[in-house]
């Protein structure tokens, strides 16, 4: 599995770590417990395309949003997390 970092080009997946599914927005501090359980613990876990947060820890250390297929490990798209989330 190779991931094309927008800064560093195509690199082996061992240079990156995966945080998991792109997390949904963090609930408000006073949101009901169910919203927090959902945020902290529950996962979609689809068989097929997923969007995930990866970090190029052994490269430029940028956070990336990677669209990947969990059936084949094919990477379809890599974007900068900062650009995609506007943060």
């Amino acid at each position: 599995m190779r991931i094309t970092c927008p800064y560093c080009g195509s690199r082996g997946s061992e240079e990156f770590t995966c945080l998991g599914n792109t997390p949904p927005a963090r609930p408000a501090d006073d949101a009901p417990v169910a919203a927090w359980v959902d945020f902290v613990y529950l996962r979609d876990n689809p068989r097929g395309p997923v969007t995930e947060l990866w970090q190029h820890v052994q490269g430029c250390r940028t956070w990336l949003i990677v669209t990947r297929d969990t059936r084949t490990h094919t990477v379809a798209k890599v974007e900068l997390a900062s650009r995609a989330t506007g943060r």
Partner: protein
Amino acid sequence: MRYSIINVLKQGLAGQKGWQAAWRDATPKPQYDVVIVGGGGHGLATAYYLAKLHGITNVAVLEKGWIGSGNTGRNTTIVRSNYLLPGNEPFYEHSLKLWEGMSRDLNFNVMFSQRGVLNLCHSDAQRDAYARRGNAMLMMGADAELLDADQVRRMVRGLDFQNPRFPITGGLLQRRGGTARHDAVAWGYARAASELGVDIIQNCEVTGFVRDDDRITAVETSRGRIAAGKVGLAVAGHSSLLAEMAGIRLPIESHVLQAFVSEGLKPWIDTVVTFGAGHFYISQSDKGGLVFGGDIDGYASYAQRGNLPVVEHVAAGAVALFPALGRVRLLRSWGGVMDMTPDGSPIIGKLPIGNLYMTGGWCYGGFKATPASGWCLAHTIANDAPHALNEAMSLERFARGRAIDERGAGPRPNLH
């Protein structure tokens, strides 16, 4: 027919013509009291204990491929009960006791070999942690021994004691742990369950559930609709997909774990050894192949195969611990899809739908749990309530803040 020395002799004289198939390959009936989804060790054990201990025999096990084709047939077969936390250890110790009686109970040789499981430690802090774990195990009725470096040296040959970075300072040994023949576990439970009237149905994929309010009334399968009184899920890496069919989101991510076997060698490693400072563990099969593995690849996957970086990582751990392994050739490697939970512990119990139950979330360690998982799920299904042994393993524990986190790694499935 019972497997016994008498029958071996009789069949020998009769030209081996009287043996029957070990279990019936059934075709689906329209209705069952209990439908178990997944024909791995856990599903088959659940069906067996439902029939044997709870008198529920109108049971079907639905398997999309062939029985044992999932993680049951892909794992490295290590059986142990060396857990620390009260929510885990009594369950795994019960499981180990069931292993000790399994071949006799099932009348099927599962080749359970109590060759010991030795976790090496490499620092004083790790030794302290193992002392604590060993004491916890002893207090909960399991066996544990803390070894010093010399005792380890006498027990296992070929370890690198000169490694300056990770010196071997001792180990935690559970002598009653060991390995078993994985396929035999599936076949043994299938045979014993089938004899008690359970239908084992292969090539039958569950594709959906028919619901009536808060109950499931039938399962949709590739071999038609089958009505069900109660439904139990035992689908290992695919729990999320089955739960989703019932509209339930689970605290699970599916990950791939790889394993490896070498060419056959003369007897060398007669126990199970785990490297405490790297991702590597090893045992030697009765055929002589070295069976070993490491950590998960680390990203969600349903591919049933992993990537090369982990192969390299495991090989590095292997030669760091046993330098002579550098001369050994690899025969095969493979991967399995596992449910990883946010606390690294399993889920056995009721789901938020009246008559739906599950055992899953086994991470990389559910083979050892096969008998107790089936035993507990059968109890939970029959009584519509968990047994004391699996009460702590409920799905609700996450919402209640009662995670069972052995590693203390927090709610990231790929860190457990």
